[in-house]
Protein backbone atom coordinates (compact mmCIF):
# COMPACT_ATOMS: atom_id res chain seq x y z
CA UNK A 1 0.00 0.00 0.00
CA UNK A 2 1.32 3.42 -0.83
CA UNK A 3 2.00 5.71 2.07
CA UNK A 4 0.69 8.92 0.59
CA UNK A 5 -3.02 8.31 1.19
CA UNK A 6 -4.91 11.18 2.71
CA UNK A 7 -6.10 11.15 6.28
CA UNK A 8 -9.64 11.60 5.10
CA UNK A 9 -9.49 8.61 2.82
CA UNK A 10 -8.35 6.46 5.71
CA UNK A 11 -11.22 7.58 7.94
CA UNK A 12 -14.14 5.21 8.26
CA UNK A 13 -16.28 5.50 5.14
CA UNK A 14 -19.28 5.71 7.48
CA UNK A 15 -18.03 8.99 8.95
CA UNK A 16 -20.67 11.65 8.18
CA UNK A 17 -17.97 14.19 7.38
CA UNK A 18 -17.15 12.20 4.25
CA UNK A 19 -20.68 12.19 2.96
CA UNK A 20 -22.09 15.62 3.75
CA UNK A 21 -21.10 18.31 1.29
CA UNK A 22 -20.01 21.69 2.58
CA UNK A 23 -21.26 24.76 0.77
CA UNK A 24 -18.78 26.66 -1.37
CA UNK A 25 -19.35 29.82 -3.34
CA UNK A 26 -17.89 30.49 -6.77
CA UNK A 27 -15.69 33.55 -6.29
CA UNK A 28 -14.45 33.70 -9.86
CA UNK A 29 -14.43 31.69 -13.09
CA UNK A 30 -11.35 31.91 -15.30
CA UNK A 31 -11.90 30.68 -18.85
CA UNK A 32 -8.84 28.68 -19.91
CA UNK A 33 -9.43 27.20 -23.37
CA UNK A 34 -12.52 26.00 -25.18
CA UNK A 35 -14.60 23.84 -22.82
CA UNK A 36 -12.16 24.31 -19.95
CA UNK A 37 -12.41 26.83 -17.12
CA UNK A 38 -10.94 27.22 -13.65
CA UNK A 39 -13.46 27.67 -10.85
CA UNK A 40 -12.15 29.48 -7.78
CA UNK A 41 -14.23 28.30 -4.83
CA UNK A 42 -14.41 29.43 -1.20
CA UNK A 43 -16.20 27.87 1.78
CA UNK A 44 -19.12 29.85 3.11
CA UNK A 45 -18.52 28.46 6.60
CA UNK A 46 -15.50 29.93 8.38
CA UNK A 47 -14.80 26.77 10.37
CA UNK A 48 -14.85 24.64 7.23
CA UNK A 49 -12.45 27.05 5.56
CA UNK A 50 -10.12 27.06 8.55
CA UNK A 51 -9.91 23.29 8.81
CA UNK A 52 -9.65 22.45 5.11
CA UNK A 53 -6.23 21.37 3.83
CA UNK A 54 -5.29 19.37 0.76
CA UNK A 55 -2.19 17.81 -0.74
CA UNK A 56 -1.05 18.04 -4.38
CA UNK A 57 -2.80 15.39 -6.47
CA UNK A 58 -5.95 15.08 -4.34
CA UNK A 59 -9.47 15.70 -5.59
CA UNK A 60 -12.82 16.97 -4.36
CA UNK A 61 -16.34 15.87 -5.16
CA UNK A 62 -18.28 18.84 -6.50
CA UNK A 63 -22.03 18.59 -6.06
CA UNK A 64 -24.69 20.37 -8.09
CA UNK A 65 -28.10 19.85 -6.45
CA UNK A 66 -30.47 18.19 -8.86
CA UNK A 67 -27.69 17.29 -11.26
CA UNK A 68 -25.14 15.15 -9.45
CA UNK A 69 -21.57 14.93 -8.24
CA UNK A 70 -18.28 14.85 -10.09
CA UNK A 71 -14.71 14.18 -9.00
CA UNK A 72 -12.47 17.11 -9.83
CA UNK A 73 -8.76 17.42 -9.09
CA UNK A 74 -7.70 20.44 -7.09
CA UNK A 75 -5.51 22.60 -9.30
CA UNK A 76 -4.56 25.43 -6.96
CA UNK A 77 -1.86 26.17 -4.43
CA UNK A 78 -2.05 23.91 -1.35
CA UNK A 79 -0.67 26.75 0.75
CA UNK A 80 -3.52 29.04 -0.25
CA UNK A 81 -6.53 26.82 0.49
CA UNK A 82 -8.78 29.81 1.14
CA UNK A 83 -9.47 29.80 -2.58
CA UNK A 84 -9.80 26.31 -4.04
CA UNK A 85 -9.04 26.11 -7.75
CA UNK A 86 -10.64 23.40 -9.87
CA UNK A 87 -9.80 23.35 -13.57
CA UNK A 88 -12.70 21.64 -15.24
CA UNK A 89 -13.29 20.34 -18.73
CA UNK A 90 -16.86 19.83 -19.86
CA UNK A 91 -17.32 16.09 -20.10
CA UNK A 92 -20.74 15.18 -18.74
CA UNK A 93 -23.86 16.35 -16.94
CA UNK A 94 -22.25 17.91 -13.88
CA UNK A 95 -19.43 19.66 -15.66
CA UNK A 96 -21.87 20.85 -18.31
CA UNK A 97 -24.13 22.11 -15.54
CA UNK A 98 -21.22 24.03 -14.03
CA UNK A 99 -20.93 26.07 -17.21
CA UNK A 100 -24.35 27.55 -16.40
CA UNK A 101 -23.16 28.91 -13.06
CA UNK A 102 -21.66 32.32 -12.39
CA UNK A 103 -19.66 33.96 -9.59
CA UNK A 104 -21.76 34.14 -6.45
CA UNK A 105 -23.54 30.83 -7.12
CA UNK A 106 -22.99 28.00 -4.67
CA UNK A 107 -22.04 24.33 -4.92
CA UNK A 108 -21.56 21.41 -2.56
CA UNK A 109 -18.05 20.14 -1.93
CA UNK A 110 -16.81 16.93 -0.28
CA UNK A 111 -13.15 16.27 0.16
CA UNK A 112 -10.28 16.25 -0.17
CA UNK A 113 -10.01 12.62 -1.21
CA UNK A 114 -7.35 10.25 -2.42
CA UNK A 115 -3.62 9.88 -2.39
CA UNK A 116 -1.21 12.65 -3.30
CA UNK A 117 2.02 13.19 -5.21
CA UNK A 118 4.92 12.07 -2.96
CA UNK A 119 6.52 15.50 -2.60
CA UNK A 120 8.91 14.29 0.09
CA UNK A 121 10.56 11.95 -2.38
CA UNK A 122 11.51 14.88 -4.61
CA UNK A 123 13.89 16.44 -2.10
CA UNK A 124 17.45 16.39 -3.42
CA UNK A 125 16.40 14.82 -6.70
CA UNK A 126 15.65 15.87 -10.26
CA UNK A 127 11.91 15.96 -10.92
CA UNK A 128 10.25 15.29 -14.27
CA UNK A 129 6.61 16.29 -14.64
CA UNK A 130 5.22 14.69 -17.77
CA UNK A 131 1.67 15.50 -18.68
CA UNK A 132 -0.81 15.81 -21.47
CA UNK A 133 -4.12 17.50 -22.11
CA UNK A 134 -6.21 18.07 -19.00
CA UNK A 135 -3.49 16.27 -17.00
CA UNK A 136 -1.68 19.50 -16.19
CA UNK A 137 -4.15 20.84 -13.57
CA UNK A 138 -3.68 17.88 -11.17
CA UNK A 139 0.08 18.54 -11.32
CA UNK A 140 -0.24 22.28 -10.82
CA UNK A 141 -0.35 22.10 -6.98
CA UNK A 142 2.85 20.05 -7.09
CA UNK A 143 4.46 22.68 -9.33
CA UNK A 144 3.57 25.40 -6.80
CA UNK A 145 5.11 23.39 -3.97
CA UNK A 146 8.26 22.55 -5.94
CA UNK A 147 8.83 26.15 -6.94
CA UNK A 148 8.22 27.52 -3.45
CA UNK A 149 11.04 25.33 -2.15
CA UNK A 150 13.08 25.41 -5.34
CA UNK A 151 16.39 25.09 -3.53
CA UNK A 152 15.39 21.70 -2.12
CA UNK A 153 15.30 20.02 -5.52
CA UNK A 154 17.57 19.30 -8.48
CA UNK A 155 16.56 20.06 -12.04
CA UNK A 156 12.82 20.52 -12.56
CA UNK A 157 11.35 19.77 -15.98
CA UNK A 158 7.78 20.06 -17.21
CA UNK A 159 7.09 18.17 -20.45
CA UNK A 160 3.61 19.03 -21.63
CA UNK A 161 1.73 17.64 -24.61
CA UNK A 162 -1.60 18.78 -25.97
CA UNK A 163 -3.80 18.04 -28.91
CA UNK A 164 -3.13 21.42 -30.56
CA UNK A 165 -1.58 24.78 -29.61
CA UNK A 166 -4.95 26.37 -28.83
CA UNK A 167 -5.68 23.97 -25.97
CA UNK A 168 -2.46 24.31 -23.99
CA UNK A 169 -3.52 25.16 -20.44
CA UNK A 170 -2.17 27.64 -17.88
CA UNK A 171 0.22 29.22 -20.38
CA UNK A 172 -0.17 32.58 -18.67
CA UNK A 173 1.79 31.13 -15.75
CA UNK A 174 4.61 29.59 -17.76
CA UNK A 175 6.86 32.65 -17.67
CA UNK A 176 6.57 32.83 -13.88
CA UNK A 177 7.28 29.14 -13.57
CA UNK A 178 10.32 29.43 -15.82
CA UNK A 179 11.66 32.38 -13.83
CA UNK A 180 11.21 30.32 -10.68
CA UNK A 181 13.35 27.51 -12.03
CA UNK A 182 11.11 25.15 -14.00
CA UNK A 183 12.22 24.14 -17.50
CA UNK A 184 9.18 23.85 -19.74
CA UNK A 185 8.90 22.06 -23.06
CA UNK A 186 5.60 21.90 -24.92
CA UNK A 187 4.52 19.79 -27.83
CA UNK A 188 1.33 19.31 -29.79
CA UNK A 189 -0.07 16.35 -31.70
CA UNK A 190 -1.55 18.54 -34.41
CA UNK A 191 0.16 21.70 -35.51
CA UNK A 192 -1.34 24.82 -37.01
CA UNK A 193 0.22 27.38 -39.26
CA UNK A 194 2.39 29.75 -37.31
CA UNK A 195 3.20 27.26 -34.54
CA UNK A 196 6.98 27.05 -34.22
CA UNK A 197 7.05 24.79 -31.20
CA UNK A 198 7.40 21.03 -31.06
CA UNK A 199 5.10 18.69 -32.96
CA UNK A 200 4.79 15.07 -31.85
CA UNK A 201 3.82 13.16 -28.74
CA UNK A 202 5.19 14.02 -25.33
CA UNK A 203 7.23 10.80 -25.11
CA UNK A 204 9.55 12.25 -27.76
CA UNK A 205 10.39 15.14 -25.44
CA UNK A 206 11.30 12.68 -22.72
CA UNK A 207 13.44 10.72 -25.14
CA UNK A 208 15.45 13.84 -26.01
CA UNK A 209 15.65 15.32 -22.53
CA UNK A 210 19.06 16.15 -21.09
CA UNK A 211 20.12 17.59 -17.76
CA UNK A 212 18.67 15.01 -15.45
CA UNK A 213 20.23 12.10 -13.61
CA UNK A 214 18.12 8.98 -14.19
CA UNK A 215 19.45 7.36 -11.04
CA UNK A 216 18.33 10.32 -8.93
CA UNK A 217 15.05 11.34 -10.54
CA UNK A 218 11.37 11.20 -9.67
CA UNK A 219 8.83 11.29 -12.48
CA UNK A 220 5.21 12.37 -11.99
CA UNK A 221 2.88 11.67 -14.89
CA UNK A 222 -0.73 12.63 -15.45
CA UNK A 223 -2.72 12.25 -18.64
CA UNK A 224 -4.58 9.67 -20.67
CA UNK A 225 -3.67 6.17 -19.54
CA UNK A 226 -2.24 5.11 -22.87
CA UNK A 227 0.02 8.17 -22.81
CA UNK A 228 1.18 7.34 -19.29
CA UNK A 229 2.02 3.76 -20.29
CA UNK A 230 4.27 4.96 -23.07
CA UNK A 231 5.78 7.70 -20.92
CA UNK A 232 6.74 4.97 -18.44
CA UNK A 233 8.15 2.85 -21.24
CA UNK A 234 10.26 5.76 -22.47
CA UNK A 235 11.35 6.49 -18.91
CA UNK A 236 12.54 2.89 -18.58
CA UNK A 237 14.58 3.36 -21.77
CA UNK A 238 16.12 6.44 -20.16
CA UNK A 239 17.16 4.44 -17.11
CA UNK A 240 14.38 5.05 -14.59
CA UNK A 241 12.73 2.22 -12.68
CA UNK A 242 9.04 1.73 -11.96
CA UNK A 243 9.69 2.73 -8.34
CA UNK A 244 10.71 6.21 -9.52
CA UNK A 245 7.52 6.81 -11.51
CA UNK A 246 4.17 7.99 -10.13
CA UNK A 247 1.00 8.28 -12.16
CA UNK A 248 -2.43 9.78 -11.52
CA UNK A 249 -5.22 7.57 -12.73
CA UNK A 250 -8.82 8.25 -13.60
CA UNK A 251 -11.99 6.22 -13.33
CA UNK A 252 -15.65 6.92 -12.75
CA UNK A 253 -15.63 8.10 -9.12
CA UNK A 254 -18.99 8.08 -7.36
CA UNK A 255 -18.70 7.70 -3.58
CA UNK A 256 -15.01 8.73 -3.28
CA UNK A 257 -14.54 6.52 -0.20
CA UNK A 258 -14.11 3.06 -1.71
CA UNK A 259 -17.59 1.73 -1.09
CA UNK A 260 -19.50 1.84 -4.35
CA UNK A 261 -16.91 0.13 -6.55
CA UNK A 262 -17.48 2.27 -9.62
CA UNK A 263 -13.84 3.27 -9.78
CA UNK A 264 -12.44 -0.17 -8.98
CA UNK A 265 -9.39 -1.16 -10.98
CA UNK A 266 -8.58 -4.75 -10.10
CA UNK A 267 -7.95 -4.76 -6.35
CA UNK A 268 -7.52 -0.99 -6.23
CA UNK A 269 -10.13 1.65 -5.62
CA UNK A 270 -8.93 4.68 -7.54
CA UNK A 271 -10.80 7.06 -5.22
CA UNK A 272 -9.17 5.94 -1.97
CA UNK A 273 -6.06 3.95 -2.94
CA UNK A 274 -5.32 6.43 -5.73
CA UNK A 275 -5.59 8.48 -7.80
CA UNK A 276 -1.80 8.74 -7.45
CA UNK A 277 -0.04 5.39 -7.58
CA UNK A 278 3.56 4.32 -7.80
CA UNK A 279 3.81 2.83 -11.26
CA UNK A 280 4.82 -0.69 -10.22
CA UNK A 281 1.67 -0.90 -8.09
CA UNK A 282 -0.68 -0.35 -10.97
CA UNK A 283 1.17 -1.05 -14.23
CA UNK A 284 -0.06 -4.65 -14.68
CA UNK A 285 -3.67 -3.44 -14.43
CA UNK A 286 -3.32 -0.77 -17.09
CA UNK A 287 -3.01 -3.23 -19.95
CA UNK A 288 -5.94 -5.45 -18.94
CA UNK A 289 -8.70 -5.00 -21.47
CA UNK A 290 -12.02 -4.04 -19.93
CA UNK A 291 -10.67 -2.92 -16.55
Amino acid at each position, binding site marked *: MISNASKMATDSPRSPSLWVPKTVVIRKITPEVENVATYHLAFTDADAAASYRFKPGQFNMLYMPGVGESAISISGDPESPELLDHTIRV*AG*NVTRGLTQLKPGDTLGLRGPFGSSWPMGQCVGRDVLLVTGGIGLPPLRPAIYQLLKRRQDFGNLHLLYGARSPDVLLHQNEFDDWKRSGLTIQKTVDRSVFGWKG*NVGVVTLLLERLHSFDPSNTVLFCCGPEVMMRFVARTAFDRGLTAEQIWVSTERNMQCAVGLCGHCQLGPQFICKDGPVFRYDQIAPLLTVEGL
Partner: protein
Amino acid sequence: MMAQEIQNVLQELRFSSGLSQEDLQKLASISELVEVPASTVIFSEGDAAADLFLLLGGRVELCMNVPAKGCLPVLTLGAGDLLGWSPALTSGEMTATATTIKDTSAVRFAADKLQRLCEQDHDVGYEVMRRIAIALSKRLVATRLQVLDVFADPMTEGKS
Protein backbone atom coordinates in the same frame (compact mmCIF):
# COMPACT_ATOMS: atom_id res chain seq x y z
CA MET B 1 41.18 15.99 -37.13
CA MET B 2 37.63 16.34 -38.45
CA ALA B 3 37.12 12.56 -38.53
CA GLN B 4 38.29 12.28 -34.93
CA GLU B 5 35.97 15.11 -33.92
CA ILE B 6 33.02 13.40 -35.61
CA GLN B 7 33.95 10.11 -33.98
CA ASN B 8 33.85 11.80 -30.58
CA VAL B 9 30.48 13.35 -31.41
CA LEU B 10 29.05 10.03 -32.60
CA GLN B 11 30.16 8.39 -29.40
CA GLU B 12 27.94 10.77 -27.44
CA LEU B 13 24.84 10.52 -29.62
CA ARG B 14 22.19 8.06 -28.47
CA PHE B 15 21.88 6.69 -32.02
CA SER B 16 25.52 5.65 -32.19
CA SER B 17 26.62 5.38 -28.57
CA GLY B 18 27.85 1.92 -27.70
CA LEU B 19 29.34 1.23 -31.13
CA SER B 20 32.93 0.03 -31.16
CA GLN B 21 35.65 2.58 -31.82
CA GLU B 22 36.35 0.76 -35.06
CA ASP B 23 32.75 1.12 -36.23
CA LEU B 24 32.63 4.74 -35.13
CA GLN B 25 35.80 5.39 -37.08
CA LYS B 26 34.29 3.88 -40.21
CA LEU B 27 31.15 5.98 -39.86
CA ALA B 28 33.14 9.12 -39.14
CA SER B 29 35.16 8.61 -42.30
CA ILE B 30 32.06 8.93 -44.50
CA SER B 31 30.40 11.82 -42.69
CA GLU B 32 30.81 15.52 -42.02
CA LEU B 33 29.65 18.05 -39.48
CA VAL B 34 27.23 20.62 -40.83
CA GLU B 35 25.69 23.81 -39.45
CA VAL B 36 22.33 24.78 -40.91
CA PRO B 37 20.83 28.21 -40.19
CA ALA B 38 17.20 28.55 -39.10
CA SER B 39 14.53 28.60 -41.83
CA THR B 40 16.60 26.51 -44.23
CA VAL B 41 14.95 23.76 -46.25
CA ILE B 42 17.22 20.76 -45.85
CA PHE B 43 15.27 18.63 -48.30
CA SER B 44 11.83 18.70 -49.86
CA GLU B 45 9.18 16.05 -50.22
CA GLY B 46 9.77 14.31 -53.54
CA ASP B 47 13.49 15.11 -53.67
CA ALA B 48 15.78 12.27 -54.59
CA ALA B 49 16.97 10.62 -51.38
CA ALA B 50 20.54 11.74 -50.81
CA ASP B 51 21.63 12.35 -47.22
CA LEU B 52 20.94 11.08 -43.75
CA PHE B 53 21.50 13.26 -40.68
CA LEU B 54 21.98 12.76 -36.97
CA LEU B 55 20.97 15.97 -35.23
CA LEU B 56 23.31 17.40 -32.61
CA GLY B 57 21.29 20.48 -31.69
CA GLY B 58 18.60 22.82 -32.91
CA ARG B 59 15.19 21.85 -34.20
CA VAL B 60 13.89 20.63 -37.54
CA GLU B 61 10.26 20.51 -38.65
CA LEU B 62 8.97 17.79 -40.94
CA CYS B 63 5.92 18.67 -42.98
CA MET B 64 3.88 16.96 -45.68
CA ASN B 65 2.03 18.56 -48.53
CA VAL B 66 -1.74 18.35 -48.34
CA PRO B 67 -3.74 19.72 -51.28
CA ALA B 68 -5.36 23.06 -50.51
CA LYS B 69 -3.78 23.10 -47.04
CA GLY B 70 -0.11 23.50 -47.81
CA CYS B 71 2.76 21.78 -46.05
CA LEU B 72 1.39 20.60 -42.69
CA PRO B 73 3.89 19.99 -39.86
CA VAL B 74 3.69 16.41 -38.63
CA LEU B 75 6.76 16.14 -36.43
CA THR B 76 9.65 18.14 -35.05
CA LEU B 77 13.04 16.63 -34.46
CA GLY B 78 15.73 17.67 -32.01
CA ALA B 79 19.12 16.72 -30.63
CA GLY B 80 19.87 13.03 -30.98
CA ASP B 81 17.18 12.37 -33.57
CA LEU B 82 17.62 10.71 -36.94
CA LEU B 83 16.59 12.83 -39.92
CA GLY B 84 16.10 11.46 -43.41
CA TRP B 85 15.87 7.71 -42.95
CA SER B 86 14.65 7.10 -46.49
CA PRO B 87 18.09 7.39 -48.11
CA ALA B 88 19.50 4.70 -45.87
CA LEU B 89 16.86 2.18 -46.92
CA THR B 90 15.91 3.13 -50.43
CA SER B 91 17.13 5.21 -53.29
CA GLY B 92 13.70 6.69 -53.87
CA GLU B 93 12.18 9.99 -52.83
CA MET B 94 12.08 11.88 -49.55
CA THR B 95 8.69 11.46 -47.88
CA ALA B 96 8.53 14.85 -46.15
CA THR B 97 9.97 18.34 -46.28
CA ALA B 98 12.52 19.16 -43.59
CA THR B 99 13.03 22.79 -42.54
CA THR B 100 15.15 24.08 -39.69
CA ILE B 101 13.19 26.06 -37.11
CA LYS B 102 16.31 26.97 -35.16
CA ASP B 103 19.98 27.02 -36.07
CA THR B 104 20.79 23.35 -36.29
CA SER B 105 23.96 21.28 -36.19
CA ALA B 106 24.17 17.72 -37.46
CA VAL B 107 26.35 14.90 -38.68
CA ARG B 108 25.60 14.31 -42.36
CA PHE B 109 26.13 10.99 -44.12
CA ALA B 110 26.01 10.68 -47.87
CA ALA B 111 23.48 7.89 -48.34
CA ASP B 112 25.35 6.12 -51.15
CA LYS B 113 28.49 5.95 -49.02
CA LEU B 114 26.56 4.71 -46.02
CA GLN B 115 24.80 2.02 -48.06
CA ARG B 116 28.15 0.96 -49.56
CA LEU B 117 29.72 0.74 -46.10
CA CYS B 118 26.84 -1.39 -44.84
CA GLU B 119 27.10 -3.69 -47.86
CA GLN B 120 30.86 -4.09 -47.55
CA ASP B 121 30.95 -4.50 -43.79
CA HIS B 122 27.94 -6.42 -42.55
CA ASP B 123 28.94 -6.04 -38.91
CA VAL B 124 28.70 -2.27 -39.02
CA GLY B 125 25.81 -2.61 -41.49
CA TYR B 126 23.84 -4.70 -39.00
CA GLU B 127 24.45 -2.20 -36.21
CA VAL B 128 23.46 0.78 -38.36
CA MET B 129 20.31 -0.91 -39.65
CA ARG B 130 19.36 -2.16 -36.18
CA ARG B 131 19.65 1.37 -34.81
CA ILE B 132 17.67 2.80 -37.70
CA ALA B 133 14.99 0.16 -37.03
CA ILE B 134 14.85 1.13 -33.34
CA ALA B 135 14.56 4.82 -34.22
CA LEU B 136 11.79 4.08 -36.72
CA SER B 137 9.95 1.79 -34.31
CA LYS B 138 9.88 4.60 -31.73
CA ARG B 139 8.63 6.98 -34.37
CA LEU B 140 5.97 4.45 -35.37
CA VAL B 141 4.76 4.15 -31.77
CA ALA B 142 4.71 7.95 -31.47
CA THR B 143 2.69 8.15 -34.68
CA ARG B 144 0.23 5.56 -33.35
CA LEU B 145 -0.28 7.71 -30.27
CA GLN B 146 -0.93 10.72 -32.49
CA VAL B 147 -3.42 8.70 -34.53
CA LEU B 148 -5.18 7.54 -31.34
CA ASP B 149 -5.89 11.19 -30.57
CA VAL B 150 -5.66 10.48 -26.84
CA PHE B 151 -6.34 14.09 -25.87
CA ALA B 152 -9.71 14.21 -27.61
CA ASP B 153 -12.64 15.22 -25.44
CA PRO B 154 -13.74 12.46 -23.05
CA MET B 155 -17.17 10.94 -23.47
CA THR B 156 -17.94 10.68 -19.77
CA GLU B 157 -17.02 12.29 -16.50
CA GLY B 158 -14.37 10.60 -14.43
CA LYS B 159 -11.92 12.88 -12.70
CA SER B 160 -10.73 15.98 -14.50
